[in-house]
């Protein structure tokens, strides 16, 4: 369905807007994926896809993790794995936990406020569908 609509100016604009919005949340999503413990790059990609439906290209996650590490928000460690090769695990630092908490609070406040604002839009849409 969505593929059929690809290429029309209106949908392209919507896609760009949606992509911009998702990009803005990416750092928060990566930090949140590490909240329960350490993960390696591929695991983070799978958690993001499974829990938030965010799909990144595989090459994207590693530069992001590298930047978060340079900012002191995550730390990494090579660990010998049963798979027969080592894996580089990432975990949140104290700064990373604080940043993730602040981002989650801001996000919650923002989405709650916006949710109140767009509620009538969704209600009208539902009414139209019912008719």
């Amino acid at each position, binding site marked *: 369905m*969505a593929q059929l609509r690809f290429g029309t100016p209106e949908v392209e604009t919507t896609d760009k807007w949606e992509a911009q919005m998702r990009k803005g949340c990416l750092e928060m999503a990566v930090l949140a994926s590490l909240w329960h413990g350490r993960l390696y790059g*591929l695991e983070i990609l799978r958690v993001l896809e499974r829990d938030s439906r965010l799909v990144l290209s595989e090459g994207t996650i590693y*530069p*992001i993790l590298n930047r978060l590490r340079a900012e002191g928000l995550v730390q990494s460690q090579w660990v010998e794995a049963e798979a027969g090769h080592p894996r*580089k695990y990432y975990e949140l630092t104290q700064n990373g936990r604080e940043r993730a908490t602040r981002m989650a609070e801001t996000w919650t406040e923002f989405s709650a406020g916006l949710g109140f604002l767009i509620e009538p839009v969704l209600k009208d849409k539902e009414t139209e569908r019912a008719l």
Partner: protein
Amino acid sequence: MTTSDKQMNDYLARLRAALTGMTLAEREDIVEEIRMHIRERCGDPRTSVEAILAGLGPADELAQQYRTGLLVQKAQHSISPLVLLRATLRWATTGVEGFLVFVIALCGYGMGVSFLFLALLKPFFPRNTGLWAGPGEFSFSFRMGATMTNPASPVRELLGWWLIPVCLVLGSLSLAGTTKLIQFLLRRFRWKVPFVTTTNAPAMMAM
């Protein structure tokens, strides 16, 4: 060595060569992480090395994401005009927004350096350096020819030796202001993310 191994090693060699501007340890750490990612993904027999490498994107682009990340990260905490200019130049390659920031940086630092240079020239060329005012003109500049000694010239120099402290202050303010502005803008740098989508929609190019 199998074809798959050769493809992987070629890709990693290109990545290693493109990862400039970082220490050997940082470079090898990145290359090893990508190598382990490829091996991990190769564990799935339905996935080919070609598909994995396509997912990672061209080695040059992957390296550029690392380099840009580290450069912008470094620049956010740096006061060196050279580091900040390099970071904005890299940003300029990503779009109009970055290009505008680079132009702002270039103009700001250019103005600052020009003021300091004028202050430096004044002791050596006191009659050619100044704040000139005349019909339709008002500018800080160095002028060839002895405008001040020509009584017929309508253009006059206003500051005299005060030009030195004024230019030093204006130059310093320009450099410091540009540095602060660029640091502020770099903190708002948005990262290029090739694919961000949902699992129930087709993948799309985010930028």
